[in-house]
């Protein structure tokens, strides 16, 4: 029963806030937060049941469509981790939003969407079958669409929202394809049935196809190359949305999906290679793009993409525990980074361009500390949570026999340190550059870059209002800080760590095609290599942005850097342009041609020809209708004569 409460309270909140939002006024925020906080507490209460032996908590099906299509809820160790993060981090972000969204015209609508998102995400992780998962999968996409397009008067937000939704539908379609195969071969959609029967039901190719279909879904939702282009654009949404959906929870659903279907991946080495490679490509591609961004949220967006690449690489090669741990630590430190960025953006009245920041350390000391902790955590500095999880993923990758993926991951770790420190230095150190003429910084079209204060309904409308108390925004960040530091310690102790014991043999062992060569060096050496590279990344960032002369000449140096950004990177490898020219435009042009040319001038023309031929027949008959009564009479007489003649010939012989 408690699980139903966990699942349905956010939905209730969404409906309430949507129906009675205007009447609730400023109560919308606290109510929305409570609808997430209570499920969090309830989930904690369910911990013993969820971790009980025998697969955790599994409720009776609620709905049955057909034989084999039953829908129920389950809470096991894996979904427990996700549920706790969704409701826990979600609750903090809701509280933060009360402060951040204060004074927005659609305050209640925002919380309605956020509650709806949490509900959808819970549907995704609590479902005990693959169609239910797809329902959650689609609904989180919808919530993401609503929240990216939250300020729907902005054309850029509207376009970004549509792009995110359509690309996510590509992922839905991948999962649908997997469902086809599962239903056709297994005959049931429940996880339990699938895992029990897939070994005998699937051939090797079918297994790969199922994994491929699931992975397409995962790539779209988790912004993996080549379906990643929506994520940076998704930053059009309010910052808490970026923190909750596009960093902490929704985008990591792909990791959940692969971990949930671990038995399938264990059995398919081909699928593992594919996923591992895509994850590694995404990790490094995102990290490289993160180095040339100026929008603080886009830097974080690309870092998210890169970090999810790590997780996907981890779960892809079979290092499920490491991948899931990285999800857990990432959820905390990335939420913290985004929320801190939100504090900065809020303080600077919607300025998001790091070139126009600088020197905020004294103005926003708390934000500086929080951001510093986040950057240290994401860079993998020892002692911080990111260190443990990233190390686990990387070393497991090597141990499972993927030296090239390992190399990519290690290099990415160095790049990560560089661009995160770059962001930190640009934002908080040196002199404040907000009063510098944008063109001196190389910013040509501040309004087009989407970085200038957006036409300002947000800033304008909050002026006459009271300000929400500052602790609403700093408090949640302060709660996140210790987690960002310490949550990774659960992995301390290797085989006997609490984390390893928590999962035990939950994920099972991966089948391999041959003996895996022993890793060439121990975990300690690997850690040392990573640390050296992180240090190198930090050093480069220091040289370019923190050295005294770099701080002195910040403005001209930033201008030079802006102008010299390689076009390939600035255009994000031209993925968007390629999709536009190869898919979007041809489809539109074809559709337009169908409507304006094929329908009227081909299909209708054929019909018209038929009509014209019957018209010709009509003309022929028309000529008989002379209108002369006497002519008609004559023809009648002639007809009668014919009839008489007929009878005369046929029967005439009688006399």
């Amino acid at each position, binding site marked *: 029963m408690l699980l139903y409460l966990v699942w349905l309270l956010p939905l209730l909140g969404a409906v309430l806030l949507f129906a009675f939002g205007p009447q609730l006024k400023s109560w919308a925020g606290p109510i929305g937060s409570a609808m997430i906080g209570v499920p969090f507490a309830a989930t904690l209460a369910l911990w013993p049941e969820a971790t009980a032996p025998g697969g955790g908590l599994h409720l009776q099906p609620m709905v049955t469509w057909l034989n084999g299509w039953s829908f129920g809820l389950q809470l096991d160790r894996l979904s427990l981790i996700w549920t706790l993060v969704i409701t826990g981090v979600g609750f903090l972000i809701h509280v933060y939003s009360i402060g951040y969204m204060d004074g927005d015209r659609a305050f209640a609508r925002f919380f309605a969407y956020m509650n709806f998102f949490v509900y959808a995400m819970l549907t995704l992780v609590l479902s005990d079958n693959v169609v239910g998962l797809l329902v959650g999968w689609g609904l989180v996409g919808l919530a993401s669409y609503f929240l990216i397009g939250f300020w729907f008067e902005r054309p850029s937000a509207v376009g970004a929202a549509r792009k995110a939704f359509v690309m996510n539908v590509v992922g839905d379609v991948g999962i649908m394809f997997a469902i086809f195969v599962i239903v056709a071969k297994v005959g049931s959609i429940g996880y339990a049935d699938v895992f029990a029967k897939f070994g005998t039901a699937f051939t090797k190719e079918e297994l790969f196809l199922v994994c491929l279909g699931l992975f397409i879904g995962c790539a779209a939702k988790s912004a993996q190359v080549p379906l990643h282009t929506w994520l940076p654009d998704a930053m059009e949404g309010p910052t808490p949305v970026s923190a909750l959906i596009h960093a902490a929870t929704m985008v990591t659903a792909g990791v959940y999906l692969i971990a949930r279907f671990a038995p399938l991946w264990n059995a398919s080495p081909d699928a593992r290679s594919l996923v591992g490679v895509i994850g590694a490509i995404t990790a490094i591609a995102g990290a490289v793009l993160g180095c040339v961004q100026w929008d603080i949220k886009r830097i974080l967006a690309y870092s998210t993409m890169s970090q999810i690449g790590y997780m996907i690489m981890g779960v892809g090669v079979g290092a499920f525990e490491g991948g899931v741990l990285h999800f857990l630590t990432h959820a905390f430190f990335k939420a913290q980074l985004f929320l801190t960025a939100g504090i900065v953006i809020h303080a600077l009245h919607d300025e998001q361009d790091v070139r126009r920041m600088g020197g905020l350390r004294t103005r926003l000391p708390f934000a500086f500390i929080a951001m510093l902790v986040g950057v240290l955590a994401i860079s993998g500095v020892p002692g911080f949570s990111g260190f443990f999880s990233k190390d686990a993923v990387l070393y497991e990758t090597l141990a499972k026999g993927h030296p090239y993926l390992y190399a990519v991951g290690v290099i990415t770790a160095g790049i990560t340190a560089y661009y995160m420190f770059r962001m930190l230095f640009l934002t908080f150190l040196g002199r404040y550059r907000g009063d510098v003429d944008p063109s001196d910084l190389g910013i040509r079209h501040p309004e087009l870059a989407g970085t200038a204060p957006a036409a300002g309904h947000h800033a304008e409308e909050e002026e006459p209002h009271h300000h929400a108390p500052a602790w609403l925004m700093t408090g949640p960040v302060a709660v996140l800080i210790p987690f960002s530091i310490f949550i990774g310690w659960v992995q301390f102790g290797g085989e006997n760590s609490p984390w390893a014991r928590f999962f035990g043999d939950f994920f099972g062992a991966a089948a391999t095609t041959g003996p895996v060569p022993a890793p060439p060096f121990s975990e300690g050496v690997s850690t040392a290599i990573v640390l050296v590279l992180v240090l190198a990344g930090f050093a480069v960032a220091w040289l370019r942005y923190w050295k005294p002369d770099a701080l002195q000449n910040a403005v001209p140096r930033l201008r030079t850097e802006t102008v010299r950004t390689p076009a390939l990177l600035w255009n994000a490898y031209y993925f968007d342009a390629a999709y536009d020219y190869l898919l979007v435009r041809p489809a539109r042009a074809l559709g337009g041609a*169908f409507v304006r040319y094929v329908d009227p001038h081909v299909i209708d023309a054929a019909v018209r020809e038929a009509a014209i031929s019957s018209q010709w027949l009509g003309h022929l008959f028309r000529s008989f209708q002379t209108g002369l009564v006497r002519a008609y009479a004559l023809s009648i007489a002639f007809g009668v004569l014919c009839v008489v003649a007929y009878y005369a010939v046929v029967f005439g012989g009688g006399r």
Partner: protein
Amino acid sequence: MTLTALVLGPIVAGLLLYALPRSATNAARAVAAIVAALAFIAPLVDPSAPDAAARWLSRPFTASFHLGFGPLSYWLVLLLALITFSAALTLKGDRAREIAAQLLVLQGAMNGVFLAKDLLLFALFWDLMLIPVFLVLITTSAHGRPAWKYLIYNLVGGLTLLLATAAYGVLAGTTDVIGNPTAHFSVVSAWGLWIFAGIAFAFLVKTPVFPFHTWMPETYAELPPPMVAVVSAVQSKAGLYGFMAITLPLLPAQMGQAQTLMFALGLAGLIYGALAALGERDAKKVVAYSSLSHLGLILLAVFSGSSLAYIGALVYIVAHGLFSAALFLALGAVEQREETRDLARLGGLAARNPRLAGALMLGALAALGLPGLAGFAGEILILTGLFKAGWTLAAVIALVPVVLASAYMLRMFQGIMNGPDVPDLPERRDLTWLESLAIAPLVAAFVWLGVNPGALTAAADRGARTTPPAAITSSVAVEAPRVVSSR
């Protein structure tokens, strides 16, 4: 008694409406809504109403005035009543009385189509349901062209249906055969295929299926909103219902022979409609083309020979009825307020019309197959059924329009509702309570069906068992080898 009342009641009520004064908008709306509500309640109260039958012809073949519920028709009658009710509530303007009257006549005629258990009676009602649509169309469209196009296309279909019915009657001795499990008359030799072709042509035109669809966008664009809701939601299902309830049990071998052709048409329509919807600027025509795409999918399901897809087809028929009616009513509200349907001109309505935006959004979401709404339930059942029956390639191709659907539906929604305010658009008033009341039951129904289509799937399962779609599959093995081999 119930069944006869379901058919004749609305027709009589509709004709009596002409006795009201022309300006009696409210009275006409109330009468239409009450009649529709009664038609909704009657099947619920009396779900096992006995057949109504009266001998009609005995030479050259026997035919009866025979009405009865079947596993599919029961739901279609309910759907029709619900949508007529919603449509009636949105009636407004100086032509409300006439449209209300024609709505009721249409409802009666379509109940006749769904309830007829005699092929000749079916053909009669089939043509009767053209009349109200034509009469409304000829008076609303500016130059009358769409009306004639609609009439001629559908009359040609009606003619072939009538000829095929007559041929069937002469060959089989009776036309009292729909839903009659003992009437396993197999039409021999070449005649069977001709009879099937005649019936199928009528169904394909009415649905419509590519390439017989060109009457549809114009008709949908020109009809007043209440009428187009009923036509797109229910009349377009008459052909698919016919395939499922008439030709599948009666002419399974011929269905099998036509399978490859129908798959080609269905897939072509699926892709063509989706791309055309992406290229169209007129909001109502976007939905019209999307219907072409969705109905193509149902056609695939009907001809696939898979019982899972057959079940999905009924779910999707009802789902499509609900969401297309909601979409057209919402678009009608937009058109009445802004006096344009051009996506390039509209924009930014959501800020002042939250209820209207919500209604349109929900309709669009159901139409694009959002998981959790009824469209998805039908879609996934159909596609899975296709795949399971061995139509792997078709199932994979049919996934492409799913992506396109999200693109064109959001394009339509955002073009109307989002973006900056367009200053020179006329008056803005959010949905009235009456309009909200009209759309609400449709939304409630497709949400409920999306979560639990159990009642429908059970009915369709019954239908699938009494009229085994497997008959197609077995005939295919002999007569028309699959284009795609099963894995």
